[in-house]
């Protein structure tokens, strides 16, 4: 008698039943058909299709991220029509829409997994300090145009929503090493696991590069001695980790836990203001030095599935960023070992609750409320009297919002929504939006929409430390010209302790657009086209009295398009194009004595118009050759422009750049898989300069080796 047969027959089914979860594969039964499953793709999991979005939306997915070859997040936005991506220093990116801004791109909302990382207290997104790598990103949705109704304040130009990989989307282990020219040196390790009730992933990474190339000849054919030469000190080293866990103990509840940390060291400062034999008495309060940043976050989310596909979503997040710097300086030609010491600490706590409620088969309401508290603590010291200046305060804001999606008929979708907010300065504003999407056939959609959004005045604008300058000038009248630089030294912004521009109101953007989305399956092509008119009112600028004030108005008219085409042999092409015209009341303000609006070049009458590239385009093509070999190439174009607040030296001529990526996968190596990829950026070495002319971008290349097991 075999061992198997000693079991009484009647016991066998019990054993089978007990082992149901791990049954041998050949035991298919009716249970495969009648087993119960939890709802996985619930409302919060499902992406909104572009044809149903109330705004123009560009999606950058993983395939595009890989094909682009980019190793920093801001560069990815070069793949969005009408987006301006540039750098103040090698790692201080700013991303804006509707042309250049100053170094603080204040009008875009940026979110990571729903958590706003735009810090109004410091008026910017610290891209280099985000505790995620490009490889942690699953997808990016960029809303072109204001979207306050669903994304909160500060989305006057648009919203960047970064969605990181799910906790369960990175199973196994992965190590990646990148080496390249210009000091490019990245290492990352990632591991994770997906289980029945608990998934997690973790990334540890080090990224480093030496920033831009040194400008060694005059930029833009400008003759004469140019101080910007050999002026780039903009290396960056970041050490970061992030962790994401998803706990789903039952079919109704899901808990999301995330935390991350980034320690970053950036080379900052400029040496062109150092005293020289030609200019022996210069003052430089921002000499070459390092800026140290520690930033971290914690996010807790709870999603509960309710009856009838309703959902409750509660999220809490805590963000903090501590930065400090120490530098010596030159005052009127004299070296002062100093040092100047500055630190800037910001922290944020935010809680948001949202209820998604299907009212009927064709109508869904999303509403909720959020509360946010920001804390700022900044201090500087300088070997002058008074030696210490500091600023410490809290702001609190709340908002309530509601958004309704009503499918009036299968062809007609009406999106209406509004947000009411009370910002940190006590301003109360309501931002409404309405959009109608008409699917005149299932594959062709026309969209018409209008929306209003407001931007809270930033810390730089509200508490510009002009009082510190006036105090220093009064104390040292003979050294007034040096004080003009010493009151705001280094790279960190230590605001005034009191409000110096007390009458500021939020900026207002009114946007109108008509969009078309078409799919042409016979040609494997899709087209996204829109024309828009965005009107900025109450725009904030620095007046000649050194006080920030409302009063700038601007109109942006433009056309944007994205075309996607799939070729027979697996090639994928994306082409983006934007044509934009901007005009403002800058010339009138200049005539009334506002020097901010003085053009840097004689041919430019309106500085806003001059800082908006008339045409810009990008093209990305990727192709899989054979089974394990892939090739992609990208082309970027931007018309010439004069950055808004820069001098004539910083004129940006036409930018053209070609990048290529080739990769070879290794699969047939047992359980270990790998890939070697070579990326060459600016292949034809069409050296161009960025926002500041000493940011010269020459050809660079890097090789990445990735191993998965």
């Amino acid at each position, binding site marked *: 008698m075999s061992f198997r047969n000693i079991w009484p*027959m*009647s016991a066998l*089914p019990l054993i*089978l*039943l007990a082992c*149901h*979860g*791990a*049954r*041998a*594969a*050949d*035991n*298919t*039964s*009716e*249970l*495969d*058909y*009648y*087993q*119960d*499953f*939890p*709802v*996985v*793709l619930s409302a919060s*999991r*499902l*992406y*909104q*299709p572009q*044809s*149903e979005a109330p705004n123009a939306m560009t999606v950058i997915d*993983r395939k595009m991220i890989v094909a682009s070859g980019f190793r920093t997040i801001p560069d990815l936005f070069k793949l969005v029509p009408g987006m301006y991506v540039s750098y103040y220093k090698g790692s201080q990116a700013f991303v804006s829409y509707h042309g250049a801004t100053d170094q603080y791109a204040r009008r875009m909302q940026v979110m990571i997994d729903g958590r706003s990382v735009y810090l109004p207290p410091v008026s910017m997104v610290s891209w280099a300090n985000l505790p995620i790598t490009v490889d942690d990103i*699953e997808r990016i949705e960029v809303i072109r145009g204001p979207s306050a109704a669903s994304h909160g304040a500060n989305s006057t130009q648009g919203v960047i929503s970064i969605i990181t990989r*799910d906790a*369960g*989307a990175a*199973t*196994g282990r992965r190590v990646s090493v990148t080496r390249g020219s210009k000091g490019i040196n990245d290492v990352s390790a990632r591991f994770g696991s*997906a*289980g*029945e009730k608990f*998934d997690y992933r973790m990334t540890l990474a080090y990224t480093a590069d030496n920033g831009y190339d040194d400008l060694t000849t005059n930029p833009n054919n400008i003759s004469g001695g140019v101080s910007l030469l050999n002026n780039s000190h903009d290396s960056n080293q970041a050490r970061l980790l992030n962790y994401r866990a998803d706990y*789903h103990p039952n079919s109704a509840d899901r808990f999301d836990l995330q935390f991350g940390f980034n320690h970053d060291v950036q080379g900052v400062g400029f040496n062109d203001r150092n005293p020289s034999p030609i200019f022996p008495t210069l003052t430089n309060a921002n000499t070459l030095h390092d800026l140290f940043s520690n930033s971290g976050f914690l996010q807790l989310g709870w999603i509960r599935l309710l009856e009838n*596909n309703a959902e409750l979503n509660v999220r809490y997040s805590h963000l903090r960023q501590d930065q400090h710097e120490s530098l010596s300086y030159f005052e009127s030609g004299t070296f002062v070992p100093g040092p100047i010491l500055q630190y800037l600490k910001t922290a944020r706590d935010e809680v948001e609750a949202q209820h998604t409620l299907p009212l009927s*088969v064709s109508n869904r309401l999303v509403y909720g409320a959020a509360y946010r508290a920001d804390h700022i603590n900044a201090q500087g010291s300088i070997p002058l009297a008074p030696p210490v200046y500091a600023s410490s305060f809290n702001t609190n804001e709340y908002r309530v919002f509601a958004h309704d999606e009503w499918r009036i008929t299968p062809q007609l979708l009406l999106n209406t929504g509004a947000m009411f907010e009370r910002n940190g300065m006590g301003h109360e504003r309501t931002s409404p939006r309405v959009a109608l999407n008409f699917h005149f056939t*299932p*594959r062709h959609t026309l969209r018409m929409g209008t929306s209003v959004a407001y931007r809270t005045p930033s810390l730089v604008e509200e508490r510009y430390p002009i009082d510190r300058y006036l105090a220093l000038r009064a104390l040292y009248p003979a050294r007034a010209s040096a004080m003009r630089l010493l009151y705001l030294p280094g790279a960190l912004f230590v605001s005034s302790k009191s409000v110096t521009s007390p009458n500021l109101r939020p900026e207002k953007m009114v946007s109108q657009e008509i969009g078309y989305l078409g*799919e042409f*399956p016979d040609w494997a092509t899709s087209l996204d086209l829109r024309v828009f008119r965005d009107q900025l009112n109450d725009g904030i600028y620095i007046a000649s009295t050194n006080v920030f004030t409302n009063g700038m108005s601007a109109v942006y008219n433009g056309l944007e398009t994205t075309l996607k085409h799939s070729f027979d042999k697996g090639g994928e092409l994306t082409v983006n194009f934007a044509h934009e015209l901007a005009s403002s009341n800058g010339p009138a303000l200049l005539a009334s004595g506002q020097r901010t609006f003085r053009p840097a070049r004689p041919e430019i009458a309106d500085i806003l118009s001059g800082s908006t590239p008339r045409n810009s385009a990008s093209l990305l093509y990727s192709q899989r050759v054979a089974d394990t070999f892939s090739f992609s190439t990208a082309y970027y174009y931007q018309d010439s422009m004069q950055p808004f607040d820069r001098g004539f030296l910083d004129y940006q001529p036409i930018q053209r750049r070609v990048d290529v990526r080739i990769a070879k996968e290794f699969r047939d190596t047992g*359980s270990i898989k790998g890939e070697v990829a070579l990326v060459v950026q600016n292949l034809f070495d069409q050296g161009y300069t960025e926002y500041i002319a000493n940011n010269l971008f020459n050809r660079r290349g890097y090789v990445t080796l990735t191993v998965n097991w």
Partner: protein
Amino acid sequence: MRVLLGAICLLCLAELSWAAEALRVSVVLSDSNAPYQTFAKSFQQNLPAGIHVHVLERPEDFSGDAQDTDLVVTVGVKAAELVSANTRLPILAAMIPSSKYAELSEKHARPLSAIFIDQPWARQISLLQAALPGHHKVSVLHSSDTRTDITGLRKKLTERGYKPVFKALRSNATLYADLEEAMENSDVLFAIPDNAIYNSGNIRNILLSTYRRRIPLIGLSQAYVNAGALYAIFSTPEQLAAQSSKAAVAFAKSAKLSEPQYPELYTIAVNQEVARTLGLNISSAELLHMQVEQASGGTR
């Protein structure tokens, strides 16, 4: 709305004339859970008076030499296995996979017929053609020792112009890696009954993986569609019970078991919300049902 039920056209069995002598049927359920109870209730409701039904909720309680039984209707695999090993009475094995029928009929010699739970490949492919006409790269992930007739599936898919990718699971630990590989050159993932892969512990991450790649999953039941599969074609316990009643009536008349049958009645469910977010323009469940009926000329 997420769920659209396909037409459930119940046959009007009452119209069948009843001339045979009284038949004694033992219905043996695999378990006392909902699908089996529903089957038992529905089976009895569909029978004419004169057929006596005795329901056993535990297959262990069935006695192989039952003198008071003319026909045993087993419901589910467990009942079919136990009963077929213990009796020489004629058996109608309802709600079992076609692969299991082949195994049972080889093992024991006795009159045995079946009402399968799985849909014929041809019907499933007709639905695939109707629902996703542009999708030709079908991937199928399966255990290496699966009993499901994947050779038949591959053959049928190829015949109908598809480019199927079959990927065998290397081990439980490599599920997600194998899934990713299976989906690499595919535009739809076709689920087959395979508990090592499609179980309640894995379904969440399988669905999330397919959704990340924007690849629809074709499921096996309403539960798959509720969870996030694009659509499923399946037979409910009521539908299988109606067909089983019909087979029992036929047996009462002829004293012979009919040939094993695939389900005559089936339901199609579509998750329109998932379709929309994947950018797929998919017909309603009712329309798809009509198209499948037309394409397969009725039941096959």
